[in-house]
């Protein structure tokens, strides 16, 4: 029991520590109203629980020490119960539970408020094992990197193409599942610019651990510029090597799953690659988008991300160089 008490102290210290360490997915540093409300509730219930914990566990330890058997103990008084006491001690837990419920319920309903008419709509579609983001009002389709303007409500429409996934960016909002055959909606109103890390939170098969994404919150001007760039067709290859890459892509069957606007590639099974070089990560948030990583990914996708559904023939060094150069040029 003493261990348990020490452990609680440790827990508190560690929670404080965790809050200032490098924990990009922490729930304790919210940047939106919804995430703040969840954090405040969590902190309140934690302290309430901590008080209960300390009282009850100390009482338990006290009783064990105070009433331990000593030599010469006679038979203790045989009490069978005490009705008034038993009724009385149902009251504090009931009150505490009532308070927690009273604080919780308004937040549940606030979180369920539909977005206003001025909100931007974005479809987020879960796939094994990547995220597709579709801005129907803008005509932009991208993958694994969600761009949002700051201080504007966004209604996310969560869907799934295959199995269950869950959309979770802890610093922006609690998670909501992506359920095949259903559409879940929730609203995010980012208040701070920056990059926020998210991850699929519902087990969705072998590569579940490697299904990540980022949310880039930027000023309206930056966002507009980004959207305009995304709408453009692909940047034509600028070197011989990159041109060879574009041909290798068509010849190798990549176009069956991937789309690159401005070419014949119009596949829909994998991420749209028209502006793949504009994204900070590849393979759904698990690798920085560098030439080396791109080459590694194209060479051995199963080694980088076991279970993923990309089928790719074995490539020669020349083909790898060409494809990497081509991808890096798709800004």
């Amino acid at each position: 029991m003493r261990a348990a008490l020490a452990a609680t102290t440790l827990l508190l210290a560690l929670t404080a520590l965790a809050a200032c360490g490098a924990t990009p997915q922490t729930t304790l540093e919210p940047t939106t109203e919804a995430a703040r409300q969840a954090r405040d509730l969590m902190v309140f219930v934690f302290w309430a629980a901590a008080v209960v914990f300390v009282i009850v566990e100390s009482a338990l330890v006290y009783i064990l020490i105070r009433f331990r058997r000593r030599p010469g103990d006679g038979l203790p008084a045989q009490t069978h119960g005490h009705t008034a006491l038993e009724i009385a001690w149902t009251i504090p837990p009931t009150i505490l539970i009532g308070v927690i419920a009273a604080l919780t319920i308004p937040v549940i309903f606030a979180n369920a408020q539909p977005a206003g008419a001025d909100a931007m709509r974005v479809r987020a579609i879960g796939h094994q094992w990547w995220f597709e983001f579709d801005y129907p009002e803008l005509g932009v389709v991208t993958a694994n990197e969600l761009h949002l303007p700051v201080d504007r409500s966004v209604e996310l429409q969560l869907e799934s193409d295959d199995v269950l996934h869950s959309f979770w960016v802890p610093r922006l909002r609690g998670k909501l599942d992506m359920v095949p055959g259903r559409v879940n909606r929730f609203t995010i109103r980012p208040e701070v610019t920056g990059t926020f890390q998210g991850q699929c939170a519902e087990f969705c098969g072998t590569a579940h651990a490697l299904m990540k994404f980022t949310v880039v919150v930027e000023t309206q001007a930056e966002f507009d510029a980004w959207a305009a760039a995304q709408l453009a067709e692909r940047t034509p290859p600028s070197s011989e090597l990159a041109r060879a890459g574009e041909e290798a892509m068509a010849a190798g069957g990549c176009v069956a799953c991937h789309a690159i606007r401005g070419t014949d590639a119009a596949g829909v099974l994998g991420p749209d690659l028209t502006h793949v070089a504009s994204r900070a990560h590849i393979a759904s948030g698990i690798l920085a988008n560098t030439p080396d990583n791109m080459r590694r990914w194209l060479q051995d996708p199963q080694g980088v991300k076991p279970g993923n559904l990309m089928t790719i023939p074995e490539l020669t060094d020349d083909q790898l160089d060409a494809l990497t150069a081509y991808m890096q040029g798709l800004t």
Partner: protein
Amino acid sequence: MATVTTTAPDTRTFAGTAWSWITTVDHKRIAVLYLVTALGFFALGGIEALLMRLQLARPDTDLVSAERFTELFTMHGTTMVFLALMPLSAAFFNLLVPLMIGARDVAFPRLNALSYWIYLFGGIFMNISFLAGGAPNAGWFGYAPLTATQFEATHAIDFWALGLQILGVSSILASINFIVTIINMRAPGMTLNRMPMFVWMSLITAFLIIFAFPAITIGLVLLLFDRYLSTSFFLPAGGGDPVLWQHLFWVFGHPEVYILILPAMGIVSDILPTAARKPLFGYPVVAYSGAAIALVGFGVWTHHMFTVGLGPIADTAFAISTMAIAVPTGVKIFNWMATLYGGSISIKTPLLFAVGMVAMFIIGGLSGVMLGSPPIDAQVQDTYFVVAHLHYVLFGGTVLGLFGGIYYWFPKFTGRLMHEGWGKVHWALMLIGFNLTFLPQHLLGIDGMPRRVHTYPADQGFELWNLLSTIGSFAIAASLLIFAVNALVSIRRGQPSGNDPWDGGTLEWTIPSPPPVYNFAQIPVVDGRYPAWDAKRGGGHTGAVAAATAHGDEDEDEPDIHMPNPSYWPIVLAAGMVIMACGLIFHQVFILLGAVLFGVSLLGWIEEPAA
């Protein structure tokens, strides 16, 4: 000596001994079978856990492949719930219920054997999958549509679904048996409100099982239809709904949590009074709060689904019911503390485990209240916070409680005490290891580490807590090795315990250790909750209990005690069932083979002479 009429096999040879175990219908021997098998599966599930902890000890580790990792967490959960903890509770039901209510066996001894054999074969069947092309890999909760043939074309899911169906039959049969036993076979004077609290919790658990299992049974039938007959109950493409599976699973799955915890609560409710030499404080409240927990437990299942998007009304309703269940749970804890208060507490291993259970279960209950608030849940659902919470309930609660029970009743069934010093070492190491394993996992969840991930990168702030957690898990493993050696040595060389080493108050302490095959030479007459105390303390109550103890062994005039004959039909019938299930995986001919065996053994069972 009372004459016992059974056609017992010759136990002087190995074959005879084996045959006697295979055909036994004695509740005490079936309990031993349950106990040994369940501890074996507990070790297997523990090894699966250790492999996962090794893989997660450091970031970006390649010790276990992503594919294998999904099998490990699926089988760890499935094994611990269905093959280790439930059967451990079943071992205690078998050991104790007849002894505690003053009966000579359960109501249906052959059905009891059948429950065990179905469980054993079902457990083996499910684990054969590791050798037959891949183990189940969609999680112990098997969320649709990941379980559809489209996403898992091998038989991994079929092993899981068929295995759970088989185990469900075992659990339901055992529950019917214990309900009938407890309702009908109590000794004269043993009213419901005089039953030991463990018997109360057994009764409630049995009712929970027969009401909760049908939900998962239906779910699994629909899943098997989807997989074998191309229906689409859970597939949106065919008009089905994956969320339906979640409802069916958790309508079963949440009561299942109480199925796992109530027996341990019963054990604790019987250990504490003995250790403190005081009756259980507020007995009726403890019993009825168990019933209340069970009842409300059927109305909280969508708190597992707060992130599914059921809407604010459903989330509010289930948040309230979930929080409400904390009240009867808290009341139980207060009653346990009041039982100890003012007592003369003997601090021996069973008491330490019982108190450890109370202390750790409080933490699981408090984190449960946190999870009951949907906005908090939306952040920490499907993270390591939930892993921590559920282990504080099922390990801190159930496992510690069950180990307390093992230390407490070990002398009753072996005639020897387990070594006290090593028992305390086991307790201390297990408690430290347990907290080291699971306390940091709360922080991992709050820091955003999802569950069911086979790896994590180095820059997330997850390293330290994962490393501590892995170290803790090996401390738990070490404590279990100490327990295993202690148990094996104590069976042969432990200090002889006599019949009543703890000064117990319930009926099992009035008979010899180990108990004779007929338990009670003379059925006792009961007129209080602690008949053994009454007899020992001469509290003016009946002398019948004392008579049974004093004269049972040498009463020449004792009439013959008729005990049920051994039977081999239970094991054959169970084999027939499991062979039929094999037919759906290996070759259709097994269906026919199994059905014939099933039919023949059913006839054999019916025609078997009762005398």
